[in-house]
């Protein structure tokens, strides 16, 4: 198996952040998705939405300036941008189910070639925590997933059919892994951008589902 260098978490977050456009309302999930907020402009050009009812939040506060009542959906301290607002959970999810959130960026365990996502229950755990991810899968206009390409023991996470319990069916449109950027199309996965130094054949060998390669395959760049 190849020991080539994969994309760093920071580069994955930076690249995915470029898919977020001015005017979008964006929800960032717990874990790696939260890193994306380090690479977006905090000038109000896009609106960050959190399940716990913070709308229009900004970057992590400086040390010593944390407000105990100002946290994101992961419980991490945040700041509020000018024009930010607070709503209840019920209203935050009205925004999600009602189609007012443009993009949800979620972590993943597996994504299938149909765009199914599994991310809430990790075997052999008997219990998992779906949080707001199930709601985001049906409500957000687009769902992007950021995850490592393979499991710790080298098994592919881009699969033909998810074997883990689903979070949402046919909901994912884009996947960022440490080997590249993948579009979910009606024909399955399409490799759009690849980690520097890797070949499509190498990525394909670590992908369970069939993988098409775009006509203009480029490397993921910082």
């Amino acid at each position, binding site marked *: 198996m190849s020991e080539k260098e994969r994309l760093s978490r920071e580069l994955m977050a930076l690249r995915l952040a470029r898919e977020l456009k001015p005017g979008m309302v964006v929800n960032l999930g717990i874990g790696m998705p939260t890193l994306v907020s380090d690479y977006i402009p905090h000038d109000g050009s896009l609106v960050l939405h959190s399940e716990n009812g913070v709308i229009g939040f900004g970057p992590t506060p400086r040390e010593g300036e944390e407000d105990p009542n100002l946290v994101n959906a992961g419980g991490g301290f945040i700041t509020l941008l000018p024009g930010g607002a607070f709503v209840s959970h019920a209203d935050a999810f009205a925004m999600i189910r009602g189609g007012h959130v443009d993009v949800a960026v979620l972590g993943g365990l597996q994504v299938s070639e149909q765009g199914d996502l599994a991310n809430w229950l990790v075997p052999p755990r008997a*219990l998992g925590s779906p949080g707001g991810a*199930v709601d985001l899968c049906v409500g957000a206009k687009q769902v992007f997933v950021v995850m490592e390409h393979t499991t710790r023991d080298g098994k592919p996470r881009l699969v033909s059919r998810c074997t883990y319990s689903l979070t949402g069916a046919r909901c994912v449109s884009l996947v960022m892994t440490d080997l590249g950027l993948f579009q979910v199309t009606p024909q399955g996965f399409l490799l759009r951008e690849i980690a520097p130094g890797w070949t499509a054949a190498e990525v394909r060998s670590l992908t369970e589902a069939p993988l098409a390669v775009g006509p203009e395959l480029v490397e993921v760049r910082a």
Partner: protein
Amino acid sequence: MISLKPVYSSADQAVADIFEGATIMVAGFARPGVPQELVKALIRKGVGKLTVIANAAHGTREDLADAGRLVAAGLVRKVITSFPAPTRASVEGYPEKLYRQGKLEVETVPQGTLSERIRAGGIGLGGFWVRTGVGTVFEEGKEKRLFNGQEHILERPLRADFALLRARVADALGNLVYDKAQRNFNPTMAMAAAVTIVEVDEVVEPGGLDSESIATPGIFIDRIVKAQSG
């Protein structure tokens, strides 16, 4: 005559009539909006066989007296929650431990469906049709129906005997103002219980709050407790 709500100086007094087997809603998300003094009082009281409805219930934060600490204390028979497990999969939460021992029933609910089921309970609906969970384990055992060509599942309301809430300030009528992300489940749970008890930093006279800023009107509130700490 205006209807003033009782203001308790002791959380223990405010929860004194919570009975064995009661269904309790506990508000809060992470730390903001968690009624920690009421939860601590309930743990001191030691009343058991509770059904607890709360966003998170894994109980692994010992520095946070949230619904999960009721589970950790062994006072809970059933929990209805969207976070029965901590987000780090390597850590086992109290619900999983007790579930494996056959001592706890766990109903795992997507977060938006949880808040909407509480809202439905509070506003007198028999249930609601929603796409959340279609094609997943969360649809199991539920009625399905097509609306606009899309599958929906029927979700049923939740109500409780008691709701434990946290706000920044109340007036003596029970009107509540929250501080930032403290709001979360509080206004919704306030509508959905037979008895609602709120813990606040400060109590002011009627008229002492900006009416435009009141997020929970006093008609939903039964008891007020002045918190001893922030």
